[in-house]
């Protein structure tokens, strides 16, 4: 999974290890759940940032949720950028939040692209090769 390096952490491997015959598409299903959730959260965060007066508590809460589910699928860079965002919320820095949010969106989009390619590749090479691909 060389091309995923840096984007995903050990948690993603944990998910792959959980996948079995009873749920052969588990990882992709969880990833789909994440992107469904995250699209909604990103919209809400964007609205909350543009709202005046800013509600940093709500912003923090939304990013916290985003960070949580990102972390559950091993989305390392997304998770880290969320921590930066939370720090800006803490400092009540709207400008910091805006900057960080742009980064989060970029990381999120990149991750989505990479994972889509990854699952496509897995479908092409088939289950035997998958076992090889999934070794670090």
């Amino acid at each position, binding site marked *: 999974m060389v091309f995923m390096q840096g984007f995903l952490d050990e948690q993603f491997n944990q998910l792959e290890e*959980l996948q079995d015959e*009873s749920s052969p598409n588990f990882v992709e299903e969880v990833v789909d759940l994440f992107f469904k959730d995250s699209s909604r959260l990103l919209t809400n965060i964007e609205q909350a940032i543009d709202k005046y007066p800013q509600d940093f508590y709500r912003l923090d809460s939304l990013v*916290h949720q985003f960070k949580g*589910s990102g*972390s*559950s699928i091993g989305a390392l860079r997304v998770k880290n950028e969320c921590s930066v965002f939370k720090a800006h919320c803490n400092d009540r820095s709207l400008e910091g939040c805006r900057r960080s949010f742009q980064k989060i969106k970029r990381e999120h989009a990149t991750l989505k692209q990479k994972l889509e390619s990854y699952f496509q590749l897995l479908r092409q090479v088939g289950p035997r090769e998958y076992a090889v691909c999934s070794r670090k």
Partner: protein
Amino acid sequence: MAAAAPSPAPAPAMSPKVAVSPKAVDRKVVPVVAAAADEVSNEVHVLAVDDSSVDRAVIAKILRSSKYRVTTVESATRALELLCLGLVPNVNMIITDYWMPGMTGYELLKRVKESSKLREIPVVIMSSENVPNRISRCLAEGAEDFLLKPVRPSDVSRLCSRIRW
């Protein structure tokens, strides 16, 4: 999808196929003749509570991989409803997220421990935040354990091996 949607409680144990996940071929087959509403099932039944659909899917899969039966709900309020109305029979453990909108996992823990009917059920709290204060408060309130998210299979097996089912 292996994980359950926050479906309403399965019918009281009249059917072995009461599983929330219809595709789980790893379910053990229980003869129908054994079914009775108050009969204790051999299967460990865990109630998992989390507002995040991702986390529900993951915790359910981890638990099902250990052959536990899992019911998932998306709120503490719903969990209490099911428990108090007796709609989830024979729950052997509750595993809940700490922070959820509405009622928190901590509040759920307190309610469970205050209830004469429910207090024997071990309650495990999960949280993405490592806050020592929070952890000790939960343990003081009677939590069985406190797991940091993201939860791993090894965390769950370590925890479950300690519990006397």
